């Protein structure tokens, strides 16, 4: 699955998830895999089944170097090399059977608190070093599994009008508000740039001088939305998507702030009390729309209109890029030059969602339901510490 998507690095887990476990099962691009960190700190992503007798490697155990199958003790390193076959080497110390056996393995890198995998052919492109990863602020990662195809999730990344209805107006209805509707969209614009597309909007309450038009939002190619935070849509398989959100809350003042560990939590999408989808938070509302389109949205039954020009644009690009890959070319937004991969800038509206911290206290987390209390508490403490430092600085200045 996914010759095109295999040309990119994809986030598949949070590094923090390996504070309490060494091995976890991962399914990506329809492949069942075992993600592990050995005692030397190497991350590996290997077939879930041992090439010996097909036992489940996620029940294996890590060693100084590699992951050992719990069935007969075969040991594999992060590159897939077989390092040890206990009984074979006892019976045939001179043998080289282990050199004839490999487990399928994919490279894994850690960046910005995420673990990234590359499942394509060599040479791998650069793992993008987005400038936002280096910004000062409290960072957190939230992951959900969404039961639908990744591309209908990504189409949402270039659909400005949905925000007016799915988020603004529906939220009012969900809150029981009877007031006026949210400002309506008046004009849309879509532009291509090196790393995807920018969508721009003018609403009833804005003009072409507003950042919503001058800067716009980024549909980051091929499977991410960037609006100051990142939302990747990574295919688990054709009918399931791993939603990986990377969030940053700006902190008061300019006191140096270093976050030792970026927490990673799993965000629920279903309300256990009702069995219905959770609707209270922005991304949960998106999930409701995407899943509602069906496991794989039937595009033959759509009636596309003016608001869908961005959606059509990325469909065309997807088809063009599939052809490019088939012809042996790099698809859009592939970074090959390490020198160009330093704090790569992405346009970002600073004055709206990512507004400077208010004096009233740390803002609530609006994107996903289920934020753990310890993550909230850690953020509040960071926020209060920075606010106190800012107050001290102001008083002494």
């Amino acid at each position: 699955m996914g010759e095109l998507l295999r040309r990119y690095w994809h986030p598949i887990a949070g590094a923090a998830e390996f504070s309490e476990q060494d091995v976890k099962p991962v399914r990506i691009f329809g492949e069942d895999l075992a993600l592990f960190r050995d005692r030397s700190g190497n991350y590996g992503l290997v077939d879930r089944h041992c090439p010996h007798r097909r036992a489940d490697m996620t029940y294996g155990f890590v060693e100084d170097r590699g992951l050992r199958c719990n069935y007969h003790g075969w040991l594999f390193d992060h590159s897939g090399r077989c390092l040890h076959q206990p009984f074979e080497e006892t019976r045939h110390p001179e043998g080289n059977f282990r050199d004839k056996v490999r487990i399928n393995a994919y490279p894994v890198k850690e960046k910005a608190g995420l673990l990234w995998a590359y499942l394509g052919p060599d040479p791998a492109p650069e793992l993008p070093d987005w400038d936002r990863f280096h910004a000062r602020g409290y960072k957190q990662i939230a992951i959900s599994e969404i039961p639908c195809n990744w591309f209908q999730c990504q189409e949402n990344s270039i659909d400005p009008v949905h925000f007016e209805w799915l988020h603004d107006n529906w939220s009012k209805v969900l809150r029981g508000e009877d007031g006026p509707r949210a400002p309506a969209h008046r004009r849309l614009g879509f532009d291509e740039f090196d790393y995807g597309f920018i969508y721009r909007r003018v609403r009833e309450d804005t003009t072409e001088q507003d950042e919503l038009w001058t800067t716009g939002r980024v549909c980051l190619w091929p499977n991410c939305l960037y609006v100051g935070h990142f939302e990747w849509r990574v295919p688990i398989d054709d009918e399931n998507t791993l939603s990986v959100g990377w969030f940053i809350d700006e902190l008061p003042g300019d006191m140096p702030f270093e976050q030792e560990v970026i927490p990673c939590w799993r965000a629920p999408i279903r309300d256990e009390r009702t069995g219905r989808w959770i609707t209270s938070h922005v991304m949960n509302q998106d999930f409701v729309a995407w899943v509602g389109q069906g496991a794989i949205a039937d595009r033959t039954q759509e009636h596309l209109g003016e608001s869908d020009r961005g959606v059509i644009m990325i469909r065309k690009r997807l088809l063009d890029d599939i052809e490019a890959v088939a012809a042996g070319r790099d698809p859009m937004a592939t970074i090959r030059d390490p020198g160009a991969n330093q704090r790569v800038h992405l346009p970002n509206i600073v004055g709206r969602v990512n507004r400077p911290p208010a004096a009233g206290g740390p803002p609530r987390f609006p994107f996903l339901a289920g934020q753990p209390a310890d993550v909230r508490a850690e953020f509040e403490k960071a926020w209060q510490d920075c606010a106190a430092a800012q107050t001290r600085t102001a008083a002494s200045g």
Partner: protein
Amino acid sequence: MAEFAAEADTDADAYGLTPDDLRSWAPFTPVEIYWARKHGLTPAVARQWALAGLHVCDAVRAVALSMTTEDTRRWTAAHFAPSDAVEAAEMDVSLDVAIAWREAGFILPDAALLIQDGWTLSEAVAVARVAR
């Protein structure tokens, strides 16, 4: 506006643009200026296409297709978006064909993709249009 200015400065820095660059390219945004320069558009050419209703990225495509602003006027006269002229030229869709598809309820970029995928108008209408 202060916030916009701050972000514009960030974008300008990121794309290596000086205040003089921004002035000479006004009213284009840093990303547009970067994209225009990358594809060899001058400020005058970018402005000429902007007057015809094309964003910089569409202007780049139009220039690559050796189009003129007059080509877009034929399409806008028929009440298509200026960018539709570029899309149609890229996808080899004539104005008459585009009008026929539009009358059946398909906007130009959607029609162009369907045509490229081998659909005829009658097939597309039979499958995809409830109100026929």
